[in-house]
């Protein structure tokens, strides 16, 4: 099977999502199939060969320098036609989720999101996806010839699989009008912090922290761990923390290696956004807090006492390791 992936990058380097898509694509393509990555201004396409990408199509047309969903969808459509790809993979990122359905519509392909497994059969294609906010996993059958899949973050993982890859430049035919239709004016990003979406570890806190002035220790803990910070919904609603940190069913869905929940009760809507995390550590003063039922590790105690001690111990540990 021939597969195309939408390879997003970070300052020219393929990001983790791109590598996870490549890993999945390699396994799906099998020995006879090819894996092509379409990238925009990639500076180190060879990073993708390590994950099994045979060919990188690199767009260096300056108009594509800034993300534009329709222009990118058209470019992906043209790349899919050129490579005869039956499956196109997009990632569970802001841009991937924006381009994905547009591409599905353009290709007349089924668009399946929240994909968590390789297909159990390929003709017809049958695979698993998360549903009901992680409360269930559905097995679905795809009835169209082509499919656009959106892979759930951290569901397949990174698998190195080096191949002899090559890169060629690719010039999609897209009218200027498409770029003019929707123009990017500016981007506002919190700098110097680990973005929630890429974080291996997330330190999250809730109403148990009592007020925004108490977030110093949360940020310090995150610093020590190289983690991103997050919060429960009421914390964002009260303006203690920015809305971009709100995780849960109506906020961001995250799936880090370790999710640390401090002073969060573990309401069903909160859990729905975090229970795909590989490991969960809960620190809560109330032994009856529902979060402990969803946790791997727990400490019953006052956050104001436990967190500073935990930071000290971690610093000592980090100094040794």
């Amino acid at each position: 099977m021939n597969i195309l992936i939408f390879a997003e990058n970070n300052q020219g380097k393929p990001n983790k999502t791109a590598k996870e898509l490549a890993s999945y694509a390699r396994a799906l393509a099998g020995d006879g199939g090819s894996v092509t990555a379409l990238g925009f201004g990639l500076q180190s396409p060879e990073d993708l060969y390590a994950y099994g990408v045979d060919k990188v199509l690199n767009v260096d047309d300056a108009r594509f320098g800034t993300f534009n969903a329709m222009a990118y969808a058209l470019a992906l459509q043209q790349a899919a036609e050129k490579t005869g790809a039956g499956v196109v993979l997009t990632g569970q990122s802001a841009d991937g989720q924006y381009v994905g359905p547009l591409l599905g519509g353009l290709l007349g392909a089924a668009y399946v999101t929240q994909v968590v497994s390789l297909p159990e059969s390929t003709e017809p294609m049958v695979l698993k996806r998360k549903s009901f906010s992680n409360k269930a996993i559905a097995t679905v059958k795809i009835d169209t010839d082509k499919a656009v899949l959106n892979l759930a973050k951290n569901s397949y993982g990174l698998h190195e699989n080096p191949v002899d890859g090559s890169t060629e430049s690719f010039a999609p035919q897209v009218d200027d009008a498409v770029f003019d239709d929707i123009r990017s004016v500016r981007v506002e990003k919190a700098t110097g912090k680990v973005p929630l979406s890429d974080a291996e570890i997330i330190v999250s806190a809730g109403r148990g922290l009592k007020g925004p002035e108490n977030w110093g220790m949360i940020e310090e803990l995150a610093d020590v761990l190289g983690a991103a910070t997050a919060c429960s919904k009421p914390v964002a609603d009260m303006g203690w923390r920015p809305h971009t940190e709100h995780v849960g069913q109506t906020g961001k869905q995250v799936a880090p290696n370790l999710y640390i929940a401090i002073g969060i009760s573990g309401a069903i809507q909160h859990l729905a956004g975090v229970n795909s995390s590989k490991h969960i550590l809960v620190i809560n003063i109330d032994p009856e807090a529902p979060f402990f039922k969803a946790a791997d590790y727990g400490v019953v105690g006052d956050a104001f006492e436990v967190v500073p001690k935990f930071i000290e111990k971690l610093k000592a540990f980090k100094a040794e390791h």
Partner: protein
Amino acid sequence: MLSVVPDTTSKINFTDDNTRFDKTGIQYVMNPHDEFGLTKAMQIKESTGAELHVVHVGPQAFEPVMRKVLAIGADKAFRIDMEPGDSYTTAVQLANFLKDKDYDLIIAGKESLDYNGNAVHGLVAAMTGLRFVNAVMGLDFEGDKVKVTREIEGGKEILETRLPLLIGGQKGLVKEEELRIPNMRGIMMARKKPLEVIPPVEATQAVEFLRYEKPPAKSAVKLVDKDNLDELIDLLHNEAKVI
């Protein structure tokens, strides 16, 4: 474009040998992301005098939710009479509905909180050729320009476009406390407002849901004494291998 979903506290179960979602005891509500969009639409209606319509693809059983939307203030509701089977067939109905209309602004949510498709609105955009922005957390009008703020990884992006426009809205579009509930007068008025039922057009599903399973249960939590955090660090390092 309104999607109707199980209340977020619902216990999710399946029947018929795990092939169907069990609706027993489920309370259906407006999709939370769509609720932000509806509120934004109400604000625009109030400041510009615009006419506000709502369209839903779904069975008659969900009409109470549509009446609620009318009670909150929408002028007219359309229900395309079909049990949605997948994102594709739902999008076909909505794209067909939009074909002979000329709405300036079409507000969807970024995702329905049942099947978490994150798909219908984008598919409709591709099918209709409408300008489309996803994950919208802000919308402002400046003359004939529209400034749209969308959420991106680690921040936001401000885009400039124009009407007509289709958006996938989310939290941020309006403040939490601006969300509305119907009042008595609205409920009375809603009874007289039109709720038009439209037959669906022919469409074949692109995706079929074969069966469901629950995620594997977590094993019991390992509790660590608050005075023995070395043990916690040991577990995180040696067992979980996360630090």
